[in-house]
């Protein structure tokens, strides 16, 4: 996250309807120069429409989008200093990898020699040196992804828009690309606006996350704050797992991994007592499903050899990990 806090994109009262469906509903959003901002939400929540309006593929019904202080909401895509990495990559099938990457420079009239030098550098940055002469259909999904990235960053846009760029990749490649994207973003210092519906991806990569629901932003904050202090019930349920329990007439929300579980005969102070209904081992953590004072709870902890299904257990958590939501 940059220190100066300069706003590069400022969105005010942005709305967009498709037929009678409101896709984006009066959204305000400030994007800070150099940050990695993720727009996170379920499909149909409006995140992609906001991204497409920033790119210029959709016109807003009302509201403004300012890029570096200038209202661009009515400008065509080719007059905006932003570039997009598309979900389906949208590589030009009739051009080689190098021609794809050089396209932006070519239409700006940059000479062939300069273009070639720039595309070689861009290929290097995405670790695809030597692939310039191939055609897109000779590349794997992950390689196409990198070409799409190189084609965008070669233009040095002030903002890079990424529309679910990792959606088509398998899990291993996805995790690797998450790290690479993050590193590339730091290295280039370009503002990234990244759209995804994958909450884990959002938590891993972002400086800030904006959570979209039904065309509105429910909360915008750092991943940690989103996770530990979700402001609305939608955010708390969309990001991570949540226990909603009633203790002494009071509603409490607590994340599964902040709850400790121990056998009843232990001397530790407990907040609730319950019975273990199921134990699910999944590698690094073990999940316990516990019925505690008529509250079904999920508890995620390190494996606890001695606890088995049917055991009476005590559970407790640090008071400051509880939170209330709207």
């Amino acid at each position, binding site marked *: 996250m940059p220190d100066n806090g300069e706003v590069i994109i400022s969105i005010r009262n942005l709305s967009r309807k498709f037929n009678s469906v409101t896709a984006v509903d009066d959204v305000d959003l400030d994007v800070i120069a150099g940050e990695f901002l993720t727009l996170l939400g379920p499909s149909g929540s409006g995140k992609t429409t906001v991204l497409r309006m920033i*790119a*210029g*593929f959709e016109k807003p019904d009302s509201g403004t989008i300012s890029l570096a202080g200038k209202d661009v909401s009515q400008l*065509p*895509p*080719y007059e905006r200093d*932003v*570039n*997009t990495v*598309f979900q*389906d*990559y*949208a*590589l*030009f*099938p*009739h051009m080689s990898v190098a021609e794809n990457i050089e*396209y*932006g420079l070519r*239409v*700006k009239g940059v000479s062939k020699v300069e273009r070639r030098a720039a595309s070689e550098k861009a290929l290097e940055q995405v670790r695809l040196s030597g692939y310039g002469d191939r055609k*897109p*259909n000779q590349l794997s999904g992950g390689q*196409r992804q990198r070409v799409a990235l190189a*084609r*965008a960053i070669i*233009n040095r846009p002030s903002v890079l828009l990424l529309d679910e760029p990792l959606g088509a990749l398998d899990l291993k490649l996805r995790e690797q690309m998450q790290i690479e994207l993050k590193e590339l973003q730091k290295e280039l210092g370009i503002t990234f606006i990244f759209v995804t519906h994958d909450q884990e991806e959002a938590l891993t990569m972002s400086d800030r996350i904006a959570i979209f629901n039904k065309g509105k932003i429910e909360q915008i904050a750092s991943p940690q704050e989103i996770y530990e202090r979700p402001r609305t019930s939608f955010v708390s349920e969309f990001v991570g797992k949540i226990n909603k329990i009633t203790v002494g007439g009071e509603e409490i929300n607590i994340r599964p991994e902040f709850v400790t579980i121990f056998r009843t005969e232990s001397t530790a102070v407990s907040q609730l007592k319950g019975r273990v209904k199921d134990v699910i081992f999944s590698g690094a953590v073990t999940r316990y499903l516990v019925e505690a004072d008529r509250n079904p709870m999920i508890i995620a902890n390190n494996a606890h050899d001695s606890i088995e299904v049917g055991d009476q257990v005590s559970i407790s958590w640090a008071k400051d990990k509880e939170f209330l939501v709207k």
Partner: protein
Amino acid sequence: MTISRGARYILASLMGVGLAFIYIPLSVVVINSFNSSKTFSWPPTQFTTQWWVKAAANEGVRSALRWSLLAGALATAVALVLGTALAFAVARYTFFGRDLISLLVVLPISLPGVVTGIALNSAFTKGLGMSTGLLTIVIGHATFCIVIVYNNAFARLKRMGSSLQEASMDLGANGITTFRLVTLPNLLSALVAGGLLAFGLSFDEIVVTTFTAGPGIQTLPVWIYNNLFRPNQAPIVNVVAAVLVLLSIVPIYLSQRLSQDSATGGRI
């Protein structure tokens, strides 16, 4: 899908019969064009190229061939421009009556040629006061040539999706540059395939042509029809028929090759 051996034999023989029905008569026409007997006695006893030489020297045939090529080329050109424009409008934009327009564009291919012919003839001569000639043939042929181009272009545009154009505009290219550098190169093989098919259709069309050609112009099929019942012309008619068959194969073959080549290259 797996099919039993018996079913396979039945299907294979049915296919054989079907193909034989179409191609044996056509090959008889081609063989007979080299048959030295003027009455096409079968089997042919002697090979000759004299009918081909005579046909090539025949002024009626040469003029008919020129008219056919000219009408085909012009109708195809008109169809390419209008069919592509229509395909763009329907594939890329939403507007009131879009589905209806799509239907209206495709409909002429299934209308009986005789109806189209009569309708066009009365529209040209009575409605517009035009005299029939090359222009009316071209318009008549364009009505069904457009369908072919439109269908090819529309299918390709749909498969291409809009993200290639969006990517191009996103990278700084305006609409015209995008069309020139991205859309057209990806559309081209579909347009050539559609154009060849359209030309093939126009080249051997007879019904609409009869009603729109007027007295001065004979295309090859019309010439064949007019000379069919003159016994001494029979060998030359046969040569012209053979030429029509062979010339029709070329555009269809090329068009199929093009469609296959680009089948995998359309969208990445």
